[in-house]
């Protein structure tokens, strides 16, 4: 019997010939990712009796959650993180302004095929876009890794998602992901290793592919993986100086569940308040007034996402009574978008462009909704209270739909804008 991706990579890392779901293994991550929560983790590390971290080379510390600091408390938090980085000699440190940790990890060639990334952030699943095993862990667990260099993991069951055919041009990877989460539910991949297969997945560019492992966290997955191909290897060529060995599932691996989709049947969708699996066809919600549109985050704040939104906004204006916030996922994205003219398009359209980071995604700053307001966002979470007040509604959609809705002042697909029906 062959092994799934998760069974195989965890066996390799644990020095075992094979593993089975449910087995507990002790492994040392190749990368241990933390962000603004590094300061709190340091406190736990000290309580554990920690003085020097086990291996400063495995740490990637990226400040992104509240950057630049909105309050003195946040600024003090950042200061403690910088001190820690200095004290411990952490190599992979990226200060405020570099971008959202998951995107930066990929850009910096720190999430590699066949490697294990453990991060104290629930969207660490994102690293699966590079063919890595990326899983979110808690703060104490991260502190324990700092102290001991290892952590226990339960080998997960695996869910194989196969997407056949081709997505229609008006449908994005975000629509595909939301459609599947809507169908399988917020616990549809609970504890599981989710693998994405099929020609519709292979046909997506890396930016679109990244949406899938990122948002798979919203169905409870432990990790989410796309088999790395030449796109990944080319991308990493000038970004990584570490050797890596991709890991692929065996053809005869045993999956707990296999689900198959025909890409051509997927339509543009939207996740409605207040759960990510409350997914409806966009056409059902079209026309709903929005107060604010937010384009950004690790889910959909890459160059291609900004490009898709700029194509909609070019020569148009944000509707009166509606605001739009754009936050590139990283400084690299920001620079590329600047050179491509997208930033000019956004500002000319009346949008606000802000420095790379998580922004208002989890209600920290840079565009918190007022009571009773309706938000359309390209992010991955719409829980009640997520963006600050529980008396606001957050809809999740693709960058194109976010941009078109900003222009119309109401939820709309861009193709109806073009036809003048907005």
């Amino acid at each position, binding site marked *: 019997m062959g092994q799934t991706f998760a069974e195989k990579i965890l066996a390799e890392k644990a020095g075992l010939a094979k593993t089975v779901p449910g087995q507990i293994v002790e492994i040392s991550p190749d990368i241990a990712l933390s962000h*603004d929560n590094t300061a709190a983790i340091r406190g736990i590390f000290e309580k554990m*009796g920690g003085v020097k971290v086990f291996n400063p080379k495995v740490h990637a510390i990226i400040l992104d959650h509240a950057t630049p600091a909105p309050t003195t408390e946040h600024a003090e938090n950042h200061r403690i993180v910088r001190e820690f980085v200095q004290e411990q000699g952490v190599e992979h440190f990226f200060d405020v302004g570099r971008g959202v940790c998951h995107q930066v990890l990929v850009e910096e060639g720190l999430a590699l095929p066949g490697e294990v990334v453990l991060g104290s952030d*629930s969207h660490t699943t994102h690293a699966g876009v590079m063919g890595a095993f990326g899983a979110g862990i808690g703060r104490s667990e991260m502190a324990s890794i700092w*102290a001991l260099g290892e952590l226990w993991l339960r080998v997960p069951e695996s869910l194989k998602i196969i997407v056949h055919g081709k997505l229609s041009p008006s449908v994005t990877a975000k629509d595909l992901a939301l459609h599947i989460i809507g169908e399988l539910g*917020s*616990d549809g991949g609970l504890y599981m290793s989710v693998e994405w297969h099929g020609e519709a997945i292979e046909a997506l560019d890396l930016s679109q592919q990244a949406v899938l492992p990122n948002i798979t966290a919203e169905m409870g997955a432990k990790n989410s993986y796309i088999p790395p191909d030449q796109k990944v290897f080319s991308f990493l060529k000038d970004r990584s100086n570490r050797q890596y060995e991709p890991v692929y599932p065996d053809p005869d691996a045993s999956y707990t569940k296999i689900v198959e989709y025909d890409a051509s049947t997927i339509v543009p969708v939207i996740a409605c308040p207040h759960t990510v699996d409350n997914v409806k066809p966009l056409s059902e919600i079209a026309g709903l007034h929005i107060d604010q549109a937010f384009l950004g985050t690790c889910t959909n704040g890459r160059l291609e996402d900004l490009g898709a939104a700029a194509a909609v906004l070019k020569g148009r204006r944000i509707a009166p009574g509606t605001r739009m916030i754009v936050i590139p996922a990283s400084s690299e994205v920001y620079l590329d978008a600047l050179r491509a003219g997208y930033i000019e398009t956004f500002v000319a359209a009346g949008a606000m462009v802000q420095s790379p980071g998580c922004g208002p995604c*989890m209600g920290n700053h840079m565009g918190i909704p007022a009571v009773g307001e309706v938000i359309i966002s390209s992010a991955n979470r719409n829980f*009640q209270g997520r963006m600050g007040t529980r008396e606001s509604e957050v809809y999740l959609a693709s960058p194109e739909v976010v941009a078109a809705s900003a222009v119309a002042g109401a939820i709309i697909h861009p193709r109806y804008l073009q036809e003048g029906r907005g």
Partner: protein
Amino acid sequence: MSVIRGRVWKYGDDVNTDVIFAGKYTYTINDPAEMAKHALEDLDPRFVKEVKPNDIIVAGKNWGCGSSREQAATCLKENGLGAIIAKSFARIHYRNCLNTALPVLTCPEAVDVIQDKEMVELDLAAGEIRCGAGTFRFPPLPETVMGIFEAGGLIAYTRKKLAAR
């Protein structure tokens, strides 16, 4: 800690960590006692006012989904919560609870019949939940996890292991 007897706070499916401990507090509140004051604030404001030591949360599927924030486990533990019984748990929150030595048990059959506010007895050693509707058994926790649990949480467990090196 082997037998926990407490009153039930019953909740539904998919209770996420944003309503257990709101994201807006994650970088402004660091004191566990202060965290406790905001537990379940957006779901059930009565909880922090009326919860008693050893009370037990009984919930539907996917308890603790969403953000990995550990404060969601800490704020419950600090309120003296005895345990959580759910149909299923979101995995990071599940780990966070075990790491703060807060017993978390998966037992869908028990969740279906336990009533809100009834007294329930939980026997960790025997692997039994005793409630008005009868006795239910749950699978024991894996050995490695029990080690963390018996040490009183991951912090104590790591401290011991680090000191032994």
